[in-house]
């Protein structure tokens, strides 16, 4: 069977937690190449993939000045002071 002739069906699977039949997203996706428009899978959670598609985003300070990437991570600072009695 040619790729384009494969049936565009929504396969179901048993959700053992609820005992209900739910959409088998992974199985369904096997039928669709990346060039095709994916079917409207209403059970799939709506998510934002913007972050996932972007390159690593350097953070920016409130003044608009870009910071180095590493500067945005928690870091330890040690202070040593002589005690004068």
């Amino acid at each position, binding site marked *: 069977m040619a790729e384009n002739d494969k049936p565009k069906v929504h396969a179901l699977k048993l959700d053992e937690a609820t005992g209900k039949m739910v959409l088998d997203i992974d199985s369904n996706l096997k039928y669709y190449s*990346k060039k095709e428009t994916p079917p409207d899978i209403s059970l799939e959670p709506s998510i*934002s993939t913007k972050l*996932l598609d972007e390159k690593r985003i350097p953070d920016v300070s*409130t003044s608009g000045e870009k910071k180095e990437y590493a500067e945005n*991570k*928690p*870091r330890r600072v040690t202070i040593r002071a002589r005690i004068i009695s």
Partner: protein
Amino acid sequence: MIKIDPNMGARISQGDIYHDVEYIESVGVEGDILVINKILYPYTIVLTQDCDLEQDYKFRIEDRLGDKIIPSVLVAPFYNADQFFLGTQLEELGIKMRAIQKMKKGRPTTEARLILNNEIPRYHYLDFPAESHLATSIIDFKHYFSLNTKYLVNIRTTNFVCKVSELYREKISQRFAAYLSRIGLPDNMEEG
């Protein structure tokens, strides 16, 4: 995407975000040298209930009896989401976190999808609007800590970034409370 309020209020509020917050990790004496270790968190969000913060503010400015004064404010750090997924958000502290695969075959992995949808109790995903100049971030509720209230009052004007708007902050607060009150069960339950 969440909503934010860039205007700083008259007092500390739940949902306030502050940058470069210092957490005192340890204080010790080595001979005649005082050694103070502190951790500098790039960003933290206030989790203390807003009514408590309001009462604290009123009692402080009116110099009333101290039974409504709160000595510390609960906050949680949040980390750049990209660093979080790479597991490098605490590498400056010498801590390597577990990396979480974001994409597989051009699609978000199940775990990444759960995090982005706030379906994992420990984490809260924050997609800030552009005007905040904040990168998409993730709160790690397990890393909560407290700050001295006076310290936070002192740095408030210089370190305030923005405030997470109502409803969005309540959602964070509710999810944090649920996470904090979870009940850990032993791994090996006895049969019977």
